[in-house]
Protein backbone atom coordinates (compact mmCIF):
# COMPACT_ATOMS: atom_id res chain seq x y z
CA UNK A 1 0.00 0.00 0.00
CA UNK A 2 1.21 3.45 -0.85
CA UNK A 3 2.07 5.74 2.06
CA UNK A 4 0.12 8.89 1.32
CA UNK A 5 0.70 10.68 4.60
CA UNK A 6 3.84 10.35 6.67
CA UNK A 7 3.98 12.30 9.92
CA UNK A 8 7.42 12.46 11.53
CA UNK A 9 8.15 13.63 15.05
CA UNK A 10 5.79 16.60 15.10
CA UNK A 11 6.11 18.97 18.01
CA UNK A 12 4.06 22.09 18.65
CA UNK A 13 4.25 24.38 21.66
CA UNK A 14 1.91 27.31 22.33
CA UNK A 15 2.60 30.33 24.46
CA UNK A 16 -0.10 30.84 27.02
CA UNK A 17 -1.43 34.23 27.99
CA UNK A 18 -2.06 34.90 31.68
CA UNK A 19 -5.75 34.33 31.05
CA UNK A 20 -5.00 30.98 29.39
CA UNK A 21 -2.65 30.03 32.26
CA UNK A 22 -5.55 30.58 34.66
CA UNK A 23 -7.85 28.43 32.52
CA UNK A 24 -5.21 25.68 32.19
CA UNK A 25 -4.41 25.99 35.92
CA UNK A 26 -0.67 26.19 35.26
CA UNK A 27 2.12 28.59 36.14
CA UNK A 28 4.06 27.77 32.98
CA UNK A 29 3.53 30.09 30.03
CA UNK A 30 4.17 27.26 27.58
CA UNK A 31 1.95 24.37 26.61
CA UNK A 32 3.19 21.44 24.56
CA UNK A 33 0.19 20.57 22.42
CA UNK A 34 1.83 17.91 20.26
CA UNK A 35 5.01 16.09 21.26
CA UNK A 36 7.09 13.82 19.02
CA UNK A 37 4.03 12.62 17.13
CA UNK A 38 4.53 10.20 14.25
CA UNK A 39 2.13 8.12 12.18
CA UNK A 40 1.50 7.02 8.63
CA UNK A 41 -1.73 6.84 6.63
CA UNK A 42 -2.02 4.74 3.50
CA UNK A 43 -3.83 5.39 0.27
CA UNK A 44 -7.48 4.37 0.45
CA UNK A 45 -7.77 4.13 4.22
CA UNK A 46 -9.57 6.03 6.91
CA UNK A 47 -7.28 6.86 9.80
CA UNK A 48 -8.80 8.04 13.05
CA UNK A 49 -7.09 10.19 15.66
CA UNK A 50 -8.80 9.46 18.94
CA UNK A 51 -8.24 11.33 22.16
CA UNK A 52 -9.80 13.46 24.89
CA UNK A 53 -10.24 17.24 24.58
CA UNK A 54 -6.89 19.03 24.55
CA UNK A 55 -4.97 15.87 23.54
CA UNK A 56 -3.51 17.56 20.43
CA UNK A 57 -5.79 16.13 17.71
CA UNK A 58 -6.93 19.48 16.32
CA UNK A 59 -3.40 20.91 16.51
CA UNK A 60 -2.10 17.95 14.51
CA UNK A 61 -4.78 18.38 11.85
CA UNK A 62 -4.13 22.12 11.67
CA UNK A 63 -0.44 21.43 11.08
CA UNK A 64 -1.32 18.95 8.34
CA UNK A 65 -3.67 21.44 6.73
CA UNK A 66 -0.91 24.14 6.77
CA UNK A 67 -2.90 26.53 8.98
CA UNK A 68 -0.16 26.39 11.62
CA UNK A 69 3.48 25.32 11.52
CA UNK A 70 5.14 22.62 13.60
CA UNK A 71 8.04 23.75 15.80
CA UNK A 72 9.84 20.49 15.11
CA UNK A 73 9.34 17.54 12.79
CA UNK A 74 7.48 17.51 9.50
CA UNK A 75 4.73 15.75 7.60
CA UNK A 76 4.80 14.60 4.00
CA UNK A 77 1.78 14.21 1.77
CA UNK A 78 2.53 12.20 -1.34
CA UNK A 79 6.19 12.95 -0.63
CA UNK A 80 5.70 16.74 -0.39
CA UNK A 81 6.79 18.51 2.79
CA UNK A 82 4.03 20.34 4.64
CA UNK A 83 6.62 22.65 6.16
CA UNK A 84 8.52 23.44 2.97
CA UNK A 85 5.74 23.56 0.38
CA UNK A 86 2.49 24.53 2.08
CA UNK A 87 0.97 25.88 -1.14
CA UNK A 88 1.51 22.57 -2.97
CA UNK A 89 0.02 20.75 0.01
CA UNK A 90 -3.13 22.90 -0.09
CA UNK A 91 -3.80 21.64 -3.62
CA UNK A 92 -3.72 18.05 -2.37
CA UNK A 93 -5.84 18.29 0.74
CA UNK A 94 -9.42 19.02 1.64
CA UNK A 95 -9.76 20.30 5.19
CA UNK A 96 -12.96 20.62 7.11
CA UNK A 97 -13.78 21.44 10.68
CA UNK A 98 -16.85 22.82 12.35
CA UNK A 99 -14.75 25.95 13.00
CA UNK A 100 -14.38 26.56 9.26
CA UNK A 101 -17.46 28.31 7.99
CA UNK A 102 -18.76 29.83 4.80
CA UNK A 103 -19.99 33.39 4.60
CA UNK A 104 -23.73 33.64 5.18
CA UNK A 105 -24.29 36.28 2.51
CA UNK A 106 -23.43 34.04 -0.47
CA UNK A 107 -25.20 31.07 -2.03
CA UNK A 108 -23.76 27.52 -2.17
CA UNK A 109 -23.51 27.89 -5.93
CA UNK A 110 -21.42 31.07 -5.66
CA UNK A 111 -19.20 29.69 -2.88
CA UNK A 112 -18.54 26.49 -4.83
CA UNK A 113 -17.50 28.48 -7.93
CA UNK A 114 -15.41 30.85 -5.77
CA UNK A 115 -13.41 28.11 -4.10
CA UNK A 116 -13.12 26.18 -7.37
CA UNK A 117 -11.55 29.28 -8.88
CA UNK A 118 -9.12 29.65 -5.95
CA UNK A 119 -8.16 25.99 -6.33
CA UNK A 120 -7.66 26.42 -10.07
CA UNK A 121 -10.39 23.95 -11.09
CA UNK A 122 -11.19 24.31 -14.79
CA UNK A 123 -14.68 25.09 -16.05
CA UNK A 124 -15.61 21.58 -17.25
CA UNK A 125 -14.40 19.79 -14.13
CA UNK A 126 -16.15 22.41 -12.03
CA UNK A 127 -19.56 21.72 -13.55
CA UNK A 128 -19.14 17.93 -13.29
CA UNK A 129 -17.91 18.17 -9.72
CA UNK A 130 -20.62 20.57 -8.66
CA UNK A 131 -23.31 18.43 -10.22
CA UNK A 132 -21.93 15.31 -8.53
CA UNK A 133 -21.49 16.80 -5.04
CA UNK A 134 -24.64 18.92 -5.01
CA UNK A 135 -26.72 15.92 -6.06
CA UNK A 136 -25.01 13.63 -3.54
CA UNK A 137 -25.72 15.98 -0.63
CA UNK A 138 -29.08 17.28 -1.84
CA UNK A 139 -27.70 20.79 -2.15
CA UNK A 140 -29.01 21.28 -5.70
CA UNK A 141 -32.44 22.37 -4.44
CA UNK A 142 -30.83 25.03 -2.24
CA UNK A 143 -28.01 26.11 -4.53
CA UNK A 144 -29.36 29.65 -4.88
CA UNK A 145 -30.44 30.09 -1.25
CA UNK A 146 -28.15 32.23 0.89
CA UNK A 147 -26.02 30.11 3.22
CA UNK A 148 -27.25 32.12 6.19
CA UNK A 149 -30.79 30.90 5.46
CA UNK A 150 -29.86 27.19 5.35
CA UNK A 151 -30.28 24.70 8.21
CA UNK A 152 -27.18 23.74 10.25
CA UNK A 153 -27.08 20.33 8.57
CA UNK A 154 -27.32 21.78 5.08
CA UNK A 155 -24.61 24.35 5.91
CA UNK A 156 -22.31 21.50 6.95
CA UNK A 157 -23.08 19.62 3.73
CA UNK A 158 -22.26 22.75 1.70
CA UNK A 159 -19.00 23.11 3.65
CA UNK A 160 -18.09 19.48 2.85
CA UNK A 161 -18.90 19.98 -0.83
CA UNK A 162 -16.83 23.17 -0.97
CA UNK A 163 -13.87 21.56 0.82
CA UNK A 164 -13.86 18.79 -1.80
CA UNK A 165 -14.26 21.08 -4.81
CA UNK A 166 -10.77 20.25 -6.11
CA UNK A 167 -11.09 16.47 -5.65
CA UNK A 168 -8.22 16.22 -3.12
CA UNK A 169 -6.18 13.06 -2.48
CA UNK A 170 -6.18 13.52 1.28
CA UNK A 171 -9.25 14.58 3.21
CA UNK A 172 -8.78 15.89 6.73
CA UNK A 173 -11.92 16.13 8.87
CA UNK A 174 -11.77 17.47 12.39
CA UNK A 175 -14.76 16.16 14.35
CA UNK A 176 -16.77 15.45 11.15
CA UNK A 177 -20.08 14.79 12.86
CA UNK A 178 -19.75 17.37 15.62
CA UNK A 179 -23.02 19.27 16.16
CA UNK A 180 -24.88 17.43 13.40
CA UNK A 181 -28.25 15.76 13.72
CA UNK A 182 -28.29 11.97 13.29
CA UNK A 183 -29.52 12.10 9.69
CA UNK A 184 -26.87 14.55 8.52
CA UNK A 185 -24.22 12.71 10.54
CA UNK A 186 -25.12 9.48 8.71
CA UNK A 187 -24.95 11.23 5.35
CA UNK A 188 -21.46 12.45 6.23
CA UNK A 189 -20.16 9.09 7.48
CA UNK A 190 -21.63 7.28 4.48
CA UNK A 191 -19.91 9.75 2.20
CA UNK A 192 -16.57 9.26 3.95
CA UNK A 193 -16.87 5.53 3.23
CA UNK A 194 -17.71 6.32 -0.38
CA UNK A 195 -14.60 8.45 -0.64
CA UNK A 196 -12.52 5.66 0.85
CA UNK A 197 -13.89 3.29 -1.76
CA UNK A 198 -12.84 5.80 -4.41
CA UNK A 199 -9.27 5.42 -3.13
CA UNK A 200 -9.09 8.61 -1.12
CA UNK A 201 -7.21 8.80 2.16
CA UNK A 202 -9.14 10.27 5.06
CA UNK A 203 -7.85 11.47 8.41
CA UNK A 204 -10.47 12.19 11.03
CA UNK A 205 -10.16 13.36 14.58
CA UNK A 206 -12.87 12.48 17.01
CA UNK A 207 -13.68 11.42 20.53
CA UNK A 208 -16.68 9.37 19.40
CA UNK A 209 -15.74 5.67 19.73
CA UNK A 210 -18.65 4.36 17.66
CA UNK A 211 -17.63 6.54 14.72
CA UNK A 212 -14.09 5.17 14.79
CA UNK A 213 -15.35 1.60 15.07
CA UNK A 214 -17.76 2.14 12.20
CA UNK A 215 -15.57 3.81 9.60
CA UNK A 216 -11.87 3.78 10.52
CA UNK A 217 -9.39 1.19 9.31
CA UNK A 218 -6.73 2.21 11.78
CA UNK A 219 -6.70 4.42 14.83
CA UNK A 220 -4.07 6.40 16.67
CA UNK A 221 -4.78 7.25 20.29
CA UNK A 222 -3.33 10.57 21.44
CA UNK A 223 -2.99 11.55 25.08
CA UNK A 224 -1.27 14.77 26.16
CA UNK A 225 0.20 15.30 22.70
CA UNK A 226 1.77 11.83 22.51
CA UNK A 227 0.77 8.96 20.26
CA UNK A 228 0.28 6.25 22.89
CA UNK A 229 -1.27 3.51 20.75
CA UNK A 230 -1.68 2.86 17.05
CA UNK A 231 -3.23 -0.19 15.44
CA UNK A 232 -5.96 -1.55 13.18
CA UNK A 233 -9.35 -1.01 14.77
CA UNK A 234 -10.15 -4.70 14.25
CA UNK A 235 -7.01 -5.72 16.15
CA UNK A 236 -7.65 -3.33 19.04
CA UNK A 237 -11.26 -4.42 19.44
CA UNK A 238 -10.68 -8.19 19.28
CA UNK A 239 -11.38 -8.68 22.98
CA UNK A 240 -12.93 -5.44 24.20
CA UNK A 241 -14.85 -2.66 22.57
CA UNK A 242 -12.95 0.48 21.67
CA UNK A 243 -14.26 2.50 24.61
CA UNK A 244 -12.85 0.00 27.13
CA UNK A 245 -9.60 -0.27 25.23
CA UNK A 246 -9.30 3.52 25.23
CA UNK A 247 -9.87 3.87 28.98
CA UNK A 248 -7.36 1.10 29.74
CA UNK A 249 -4.78 2.99 27.70
CA UNK A 250 -5.78 6.31 29.22
CA UNK A 251 -5.40 4.95 32.78
CA UNK A 252 -2.03 3.48 31.85
CA UNK A 253 -0.80 6.84 30.53
CA UNK A 254 -2.39 9.32 32.91
CA UNK A 255 -2.85 7.12 35.94
CA UNK A 256 -6.44 8.13 36.64
Amino acid at each position, binding site marked *: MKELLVVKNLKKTF*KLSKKQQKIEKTTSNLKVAVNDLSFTAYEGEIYGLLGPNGAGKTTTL*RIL*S*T*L*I*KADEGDAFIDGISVKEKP*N*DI*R*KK*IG*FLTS*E*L*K*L*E*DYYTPNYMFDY*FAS*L*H*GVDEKDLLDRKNQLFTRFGIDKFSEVKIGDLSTGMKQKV*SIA*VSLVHNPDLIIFDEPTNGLDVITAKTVTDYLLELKNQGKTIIISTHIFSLVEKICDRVGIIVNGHMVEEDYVKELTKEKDLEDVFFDIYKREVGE
Partner: protein
Amino acid sequence: MKNILTIMKKELKRFFGDRRMLLSLILPGLIVFVLYTIMGQFIGSIGKGDANHDYNVYIVNNSNDKSINDLHEVDKYKITINEVDEDQIDAIKEDIKIKTKDLLIVFEKDFDAKKNNGTSPTVDLYYNSTNDNSQEIYTYYLTGLSEKAINDIKYNYLINGGVGAGSTNNLATKEDVSSQVITMIVPYILIIFLFTGCMGIATESIAGEKERGTIATLLVTPTKRRDIALGKVLALSITSVFSSVVTFIAVIASVPNMMGGVSESGITLSMYGVKEILLILLFIVLAVLLFTSILTVLSTLAKSIKEATQYAMPIMVITMMIGVLSMSGNIPTNPALYLVPVYNIAMGLTSVFAGKIDALNIILATVSNVAYIAGAVFALTKLFNNEKIMFSK
Protein backbone atom coordinates in the same frame (compact mmCIF):
# COMPACT_ATOMS: atom_id res chain seq x y z
CA MET B 1 -31.77 47.10 47.51
CA LYS B 2 -29.06 44.48 48.03
CA ASN B 3 -29.79 43.00 44.62
CA ILE B 4 -29.58 46.43 42.99
CA LEU B 5 -26.17 46.94 44.56
CA THR B 6 -25.02 43.46 43.54
CA ILE B 7 -26.04 44.06 39.91
CA MET B 8 -24.59 47.58 39.94
CA LYS B 9 -21.27 46.33 41.35
CA LYS B 10 -21.03 43.66 38.67
CA GLU B 11 -21.73 46.18 35.87
CA LEU B 12 -19.23 48.71 37.28
CA LYS B 13 -16.59 45.98 37.57
CA ARG B 14 -17.08 45.36 33.85
CA PHE B 15 -16.88 49.07 32.92
CA PHE B 16 -13.88 49.98 35.06
CA GLY B 17 -12.11 46.60 35.11
CA ASP B 18 -11.77 46.27 31.33
CA ARG B 19 -8.95 48.58 30.21
CA ARG B 20 -10.33 48.86 26.67
CA MET B 21 -13.78 49.78 27.88
CA LEU B 22 -12.30 52.30 30.28
CA LEU B 23 -10.33 53.83 27.41
CA SER B 24 -13.48 54.09 25.32
CA LEU B 25 -15.10 56.02 28.18
CA ILE B 26 -12.19 58.47 28.48
CA LEU B 27 -11.33 58.81 24.78
CA PRO B 28 -14.26 61.06 23.71
CA GLY B 29 -13.26 63.63 26.35
CA LEU B 30 -9.64 63.51 25.24
CA ILE B 31 -10.66 63.89 21.58
CA VAL B 32 -12.79 66.94 22.35
CA PHE B 33 -9.98 68.57 24.36
CA VAL B 34 -7.30 68.00 21.71
CA LEU B 35 -9.55 68.96 18.79
CA TYR B 36 -10.85 72.15 20.39
CA THR B 37 -7.32 73.17 21.40
CA ILE B 38 -6.04 72.78 17.86
CA MET B 39 -9.13 74.44 16.37
CA GLY B 40 -8.79 77.38 18.77
CA GLN B 41 -5.17 77.88 17.76
CA PHE B 42 -5.89 77.81 14.07
CA ILE B 43 -9.00 80.02 14.29
CA GLY B 44 -6.79 82.62 15.99
CA SER B 45 -4.39 82.47 13.05
CA ILE B 46 -7.02 83.04 10.35
CA GLY B 47 -6.57 86.40 8.59
CA LYS B 48 -3.24 86.99 10.30
CA GLY B 49 -0.49 88.34 8.08
CA ASP B 50 3.17 87.41 8.10
CA ALA B 51 4.95 88.70 11.18
CA ASN B 52 7.79 90.23 9.12
CA HIS B 53 5.70 91.53 6.26
CA ASP B 54 6.34 95.05 4.96
CA TYR B 55 2.81 96.42 4.53
CA ASN B 56 2.57 98.67 1.49
CA VAL B 57 -0.26 101.12 2.04
CA TYR B 58 -1.26 103.55 -0.70
CA ILE B 59 -2.99 106.78 0.23
CA VAL B 60 -4.84 109.26 -1.96
CA ASN B 61 -5.49 112.82 -0.66
CA ASN B 62 -3.72 112.06 2.63
CA SER B 63 -5.08 113.74 5.72
CA ASN B 64 -2.81 115.99 7.72
CA ASP B 65 -4.58 115.10 10.93
CA LYS B 66 -1.88 114.02 13.38
CA SER B 67 -4.16 111.60 15.13
CA ILE B 68 -4.92 109.82 11.84
CA ASN B 69 -1.27 109.88 10.77
CA ASP B 70 -0.29 108.32 14.08
CA LEU B 71 -1.97 105.15 12.82
CA HIS B 72 0.95 104.71 10.38
CA GLU B 73 3.46 104.56 13.24
CA VAL B 74 2.89 101.42 15.22
CA ASP B 75 5.37 98.90 16.63
CA LYS B 76 3.28 95.93 15.65
CA TYR B 77 3.52 96.52 11.89
CA LYS B 78 6.16 97.69 9.48
CA ILE B 79 4.13 100.03 7.27
CA THR B 80 5.38 101.81 4.16
CA ILE B 81 3.15 104.73 3.19
CA ASN B 82 2.96 105.66 -0.48
CA GLU B 83 1.05 108.83 -1.30
CA VAL B 84 -0.39 108.62 -4.81
CA ASP B 85 -2.65 110.66 -7.09
CA GLU B 86 -6.31 109.92 -7.85
CA ASP B 87 -5.48 108.79 -11.40
CA GLN B 88 -3.57 105.79 -9.97
CA ILE B 89 -6.54 104.45 -8.01
CA ASP B 90 -7.66 101.90 -10.61
CA ALA B 91 -4.16 100.54 -11.17
CA ILE B 92 -3.61 100.08 -7.41
CA LYS B 93 -7.00 98.40 -7.03
CA GLU B 94 -5.92 95.90 -9.70
CA ASP B 95 -2.67 95.25 -7.82
CA ILE B 96 -4.61 94.66 -4.59
CA LYS B 97 -6.85 92.26 -6.48
CA ILE B 98 -3.81 90.25 -7.63
CA LYS B 99 -2.33 90.52 -4.10
CA THR B 100 0.80 92.53 -4.96
CA LYS B 101 -0.34 95.53 -2.90
CA ASP B 102 -2.02 95.46 0.50
CA LEU B 103 -4.23 98.47 1.07
CA LEU B 104 -5.51 101.62 -0.60
CA ILE B 105 -6.93 104.46 1.52
CA VAL B 106 -8.77 107.15 -0.39
CA PHE B 107 -9.61 110.27 1.57
CA GLU B 108 -12.20 112.56 0.00
CA LYS B 109 -10.74 115.70 -1.55
CA ASP B 110 -10.30 118.44 1.13
CA PHE B 111 -10.94 115.79 3.77
CA ASP B 112 -9.48 117.78 6.67
CA ALA B 113 -11.39 120.97 5.85
CA LYS B 114 -14.69 119.11 5.43
CA LYS B 115 -14.08 117.18 8.63
CA ASN B 116 -13.46 120.36 10.52
CA ASN B 117 -16.54 122.18 9.21
CA GLY B 118 -18.78 119.24 9.97
CA THR B 119 -19.75 118.11 6.44
CA SER B 120 -18.76 114.48 7.09
CA PRO B 121 -16.27 113.62 4.34
CA THR B 122 -15.66 110.00 3.35
CA VAL B 123 -12.66 107.75 3.58
CA ASP B 124 -12.59 104.51 1.60
CA LEU B 125 -10.36 101.55 2.34
CA TYR B 126 -9.76 99.02 -0.45
CA TYR B 127 -8.35 95.62 0.42
CA ASN B 128 -8.42 91.93 -0.54
CA SER B 129 -9.89 89.57 2.05
CA THR B 130 -8.22 86.54 0.45
CA ASN B 131 -4.79 88.05 1.08
CA ASP B 132 -4.00 87.60 4.80
CA ASN B 133 -1.63 90.61 4.85
CA SER B 134 -4.21 92.83 3.17
CA GLN B 135 -6.96 91.59 5.49
CA GLU B 136 -4.86 92.22 8.59
CA ILE B 137 -3.76 95.74 7.72
CA TYR B 138 -7.28 96.62 6.58
CA THR B 139 -8.68 95.47 9.92
CA TYR B 140 -6.06 97.56 11.71
CA TYR B 141 -6.89 100.78 9.81
CA LEU B 142 -10.66 100.19 9.88
CA THR B 143 -10.57 99.71 13.63
CA GLY B 144 -8.29 102.71 14.16
CA LEU B 145 -10.34 105.07 12.01
CA SER B 146 -13.63 103.79 13.45
CA GLU B 147 -12.49 104.24 17.03
CA LYS B 148 -11.51 107.80 16.36
CA ALA B 149 -14.77 108.46 14.53
CA ILE B 150 -16.82 106.99 17.34
CA ASN B 151 -14.88 108.26 20.35
CA ASP B 152 -14.11 111.80 19.34
CA ILE B 153 -16.64 114.43 18.23
CA LYS B 154 -14.09 115.99 15.86
CA TYR B 155 -13.84 112.85 13.75
CA ASN B 156 -17.15 113.07 11.94
CA TYR B 157 -16.29 111.23 8.73
CA LEU B 158 -17.86 108.27 6.98
CA ILE B 159 -15.74 105.20 6.51
CA ASN B 160 -16.34 103.27 3.31
CA GLY B 161 -19.25 105.53 2.43
CA GLY B 162 -20.85 104.84 5.76
CA VAL B 163 -21.32 101.17 5.03
CA GLY B 164 -18.81 100.28 7.73
CA ALA B 165 -17.95 96.74 6.84
CA GLY B 166 -17.05 97.94 3.35
CA SER B 167 -18.01 94.81 1.45
CA THR B 168 -17.86 96.69 -1.84
CA ASN B 169 -14.33 97.76 -0.97
CA ASN B 170 -13.19 94.16 -0.75
CA LEU B 171 -11.38 93.70 -4.07
CA ALA B 172 -11.05 89.94 -3.78
CA THR B 173 -12.37 88.16 -6.85
CA LYS B 174 -15.29 85.77 -6.52
CA GLU B 175 -12.89 82.96 -7.48
CA ASP B 176 -10.43 83.89 -4.72
CA VAL B 177 -13.18 84.13 -2.09
CA SER B 178 -14.63 80.81 -3.22
CA SER B 179 -11.22 79.15 -3.22
CA GLN B 180 -10.54 80.47 0.30
CA VAL B 181 -13.85 79.19 1.65
CA ILE B 182 -13.56 75.81 -0.08
CA THR B 183 -9.94 75.38 1.04
CA MET B 184 -10.97 76.03 4.62
CA ILE B 185 -13.81 73.52 4.66
CA VAL B 186 -13.66 70.86 1.96
CA PRO B 187 -10.29 69.12 2.66
CA TYR B 188 -11.25 68.69 6.32
CA ILE B 189 -14.71 67.32 5.53
CA LEU B 190 -13.29 65.08 2.80
CA ILE B 191 -10.60 63.57 5.04
CA ILE B 192 -13.08 62.88 7.83
CA PHE B 193 -15.61 61.30 5.45
CA LEU B 194 -12.92 59.30 3.66
CA PHE B 195 -11.63 57.91 6.96
CA THR B 196 -15.01 57.11 8.46
CA GLY B 197 -16.13 55.56 5.15
CA CYS B 198 -13.08 53.28 5.12
CA MET B 199 -13.40 52.58 8.84
CA GLY B 200 -16.96 51.36 8.40
CA ILE B 201 -15.97 48.54 6.10
CA ALA B 202 -12.25 47.90 6.65
CA THR B 203 -12.40 47.29 10.41
CA GLU B 204 -15.11 44.69 9.80
CA SER B 205 -13.26 42.92 6.99
CA ILE B 206 -10.75 40.51 8.56
CA ALA B 207 -11.88 40.76 12.19
CA GLY B 208 -15.42 39.98 11.03
CA GLU B 209 -14.21 36.96 9.08
CA LYS B 210 -12.27 35.79 12.14
CA GLU B 211 -15.38 36.19 14.28
CA ARG B 212 -17.52 34.29 11.76
CA GLY B 213 -14.82 31.63 11.23
CA THR B 214 -14.65 32.18 7.47
CA ILE B 215 -11.03 33.38 7.14
CA ALA B 216 -9.50 29.92 7.79
CA THR B 217 -11.60 28.48 4.94
CA LEU B 218 -9.81 30.90 2.64
CA LEU B 219 -6.37 30.24 4.14
CA VAL B 220 -6.50 26.50 3.35
CA THR B 221 -6.80 27.21 -0.37
CA PRO B 222 -3.60 27.35 -2.44
CA THR B 223 -3.94 31.11 -2.80
CA LYS B 224 -0.87 33.17 -1.96
CA ARG B 225 -1.25 35.23 1.20
CA ARG B 226 -0.15 38.29 -0.77
CA ASP B 227 -2.98 37.72 -3.26
CA ILE B 228 -5.51 37.41 -0.43
CA ALA B 229 -4.20 40.64 1.14
CA LEU B 230 -4.26 42.54 -2.15
CA GLY B 231 -7.66 41.17 -3.12
CA LYS B 232 -9.14 42.25 0.20
CA VAL B 233 -7.54 45.72 0.21
CA LEU B 234 -8.44 46.44 -3.42
CA ALA B 235 -12.06 45.33 -3.00
CA LEU B 236 -12.44 47.44 0.13
CA SER B 237 -10.74 50.36 -1.60
CA ILE B 238 -12.99 50.20 -4.67
CA THR B 239 -16.02 50.26 -2.38
CA SER B 240 -14.56 53.14 -0.39
CA VAL B 241 -13.51 55.09 -3.50
CA PHE B 242 -17.01 54.75 -4.90
CA SER B 243 -18.49 55.99 -1.64
CA SER B 244 -15.85 58.74 -1.41
CA VAL B 245 -16.46 60.07 -4.92
CA VAL B 246 -20.18 60.29 -4.14
CA THR B 247 -19.29 62.09 -0.87
CA PHE B 248 -16.92 64.44 -2.71
CA ILE B 249 -19.56 65.38 -5.28
CA ALA B 250 -22.09 65.92 -2.48
CA VAL B 251 -19.66 68.08 -0.49
CA ILE B 252 -18.75 70.22 -3.50
CA ALA B 253 -22.40 70.52 -4.54
CA SER B 254 -23.45 71.55 -1.05
CA VAL B 255 -20.70 74.12 -0.44
CA PRO B 256 -22.48 76.96 -2.31
CA ASN B 257 -25.63 76.32 -0.24
CA MET B 258 -23.72 75.94 3.00
CA MET B 259 -21.69 79.09 2.38
CA GLY B 260 -24.54 81.22 1.11
CA GLY B 261 -24.29 83.49 4.12
CA VAL B 262 -20.51 83.81 4.05
CA SER B 263 -20.12 85.42 0.67
CA GLU B 264 -22.80 87.75 -0.67
CA SER B 265 -21.72 87.09 -4.24
CA GLY B 266 -21.99 83.32 -3.70
CA ILE B 267 -19.47 80.57 -4.35
CA THR B 268 -18.10 79.62 -7.74
CA LEU B 269 -16.18 76.53 -8.78
CA SER B 270 -15.00 78.04 -12.06
CA MET B 271 -11.39 78.26 -10.87
CA TYR B 272 -11.10 74.47 -10.87
CA GLY B 273 -10.34 72.73 -14.17
CA VAL B 274 -9.62 69.18 -15.28
CA LYS B 275 -6.12 69.26 -13.74
CA GLU B 276 -7.48 70.17 -10.30
CA ILE B 277 -10.26 67.55 -10.46
CA LEU B 278 -7.79 64.82 -11.48
CA LEU B 279 -5.43 65.79 -8.65
CA ILE B 280 -8.28 65.77 -6.13
CA LEU B 281 -9.29 62.30 -7.37
CA LEU B 282 -5.67 61.20 -7.07
CA PHE B 283 -5.57 62.28 -3.42
CA ILE B 284 -8.95 60.68 -2.74
CA VAL B 285 -7.70 57.37 -4.16
CA LEU B 286 -4.42 57.63 -2.21
CA ALA B 287 -6.28 58.47 1.00
CA VAL B 288 -8.72 55.60 0.57
CA LEU B 289 -5.97 53.09 -0.23
CA LEU B 290 -3.89 54.28 2.73
CA PHE B 291 -6.78 54.29 5.20
CA THR B 292 -8.08 50.94 3.95
CA SER B 293 -4.71 49.21 4.12
CA ILE B 294 -3.92 50.57 7.61
CA LEU B 295 -7.39 49.72 8.92
CA THR B 296 -7.22 46.25 7.35
CA VAL B 297 -3.93 45.63 9.19
CA LEU B 298 -5.61 46.71 12.44
CA SER B 299 -8.61 44.53 11.62
CA THR B 300 -6.25 41.58 11.13
CA LEU B 301 -4.55 42.21 14.47
CA ALA B 302 -7.91 42.32 16.24
CA LYS B 303 -9.81 39.28 17.43
CA SER B 304 -13.23 40.84 16.94
CA ILE B 305 -14.93 43.72 15.13
CA LYS B 306 -15.29 45.53 18.45
CA GLU B 307 -11.58 45.24 19.12
CA ALA B 308 -10.77 46.39 15.56
CA THR B 309 -12.93 49.49 16.07
CA GLN B 310 -11.10 50.22 19.31
CA TYR B 311 -7.74 49.91 17.55
CA ALA B 312 -8.95 52.30 14.84
CA MET B 313 -10.03 55.01 17.29
CA PRO B 314 -6.56 56.52 17.91
CA ILE B 315 -5.92 56.60 14.15
CA MET B 316 -9.25 58.39 13.72
CA VAL B 317 -8.28 60.99 16.34
CA ILE B 318 -4.93 61.62 14.63
CA THR B 319 -6.65 61.88 11.23
CA MET B 320 -9.19 64.35 12.62
CA MET B 321 -6.42 66.47 14.12
CA ILE B 322 -4.55 66.50 10.82
CA GLY B 323 -7.81 67.36 9.07
CA VAL B 324 -8.28 70.32 11.40
CA LEU B 325 -4.78 71.57 10.50
CA SER B 326 -5.84 71.76 6.86
CA MET B 327 -8.59 74.26 7.80
CA SER B 328 -6.04 77.02 8.31
CA GLY B 329 -5.34 76.97 4.58
CA ASN B 330 -1.62 77.36 5.29
CA ILE B 331 0.40 75.22 2.93
CA PRO B 332 3.86 74.14 4.09
CA THR B 333 6.73 74.77 1.70
CA ASN B 334 9.13 72.26 3.26
CA PRO B 335 9.05 69.21 0.91
CA ALA B 336 9.93 66.85 3.79
CA LEU B 337 6.49 67.46 5.28
CA TYR B 338 4.95 65.91 2.17
CA LEU B 339 6.39 62.57 3.27
CA VAL B 340 4.29 62.52 6.44
CA PRO B 341 1.38 60.11 5.91
CA VAL B 342 -2.17 61.54 6.04
CA TYR B 343 -0.74 65.05 6.59
CA ASN B 344 0.62 64.99 3.04
CA ILE B 345 -2.83 64.07 1.72
CA ALA B 346 -4.45 66.87 3.73
CA MET B 347 -1.89 69.38 2.50
CA GLY B 348 -2.03 68.02 -1.04
CA LEU B 349 -5.80 68.53 -1.12
CA THR B 350 -5.44 71.97 0.47
CA SER B 351 -2.86 73.06 -2.09
CA VAL B 352 -5.05 71.90 -4.99
CA PHE B 353 -8.16 73.66 -3.62
CA ALA B 354 -6.11 76.81 -2.93
CA GLY B 355 -4.72 76.75 -6.46
CA LYS B 356 -1.14 76.55 -5.14
CA ILE B 357 -0.06 73.29 -6.75
CA ASP B 358 3.60 72.38 -6.45
CA ALA B 359 4.61 69.48 -8.69
CA LEU B 360 7.46 68.31 -6.43
CA ASN B 361 5.23 68.19 -3.35
CA ILE B 362 2.49 66.33 -5.25
CA ILE B 363 5.03 63.77 -6.48
CA LEU B 364 6.50 63.33 -2.99
CA ALA B 365 3.06 62.85 -1.47
CA THR B 366 2.07 60.34 -4.15
CA VAL B 367 5.26 58.28 -4.08
CA SER B 368 5.43 58.19 -0.27
CA ASN B 369 1.80 57.11 0.03
CA VAL B 370 2.26 54.36 -2.54
CA ALA B 371 5.23 53.17 -0.43
CA TYR B 372 3.16 53.26 2.78
CA ILE B 373 0.31 51.35 1.10
CA ALA B 374 2.77 48.74 -0.23
CA GLY B 375 4.25 48.49 3.29
CA ALA B 376 0.81 47.94 4.79
CA VAL B 377 -0.03 45.24 2.23
CA PHE B 378 3.32 43.57 2.95
CA ALA B 379 2.57 43.69 6.69
CA LEU B 380 -0.85 42.22 5.97
CA THR B 381 0.73 39.34 4.04
CA LYS B 382 3.05 38.66 6.98
CA LEU B 383 0.13 38.78 9.42
CA PHE B 384 -1.83 36.27 7.33
CA ASN B 385 1.11 33.90 7.82
CA ASN B 386 1.17 34.49 11.56
CA GLU B 387 -0.84 31.70 13.16
CA LYS B 388 -0.96 33.50 16.52
CA ILE B 389 -2.61 36.50 14.92
CA MET B 390 -4.93 34.53 12.68
CA PHE B 391 -6.08 31.83 15.08
CA SER B 392 -5.71 33.16 18.60
CA LYS B 393 -8.95 33.37 20.52
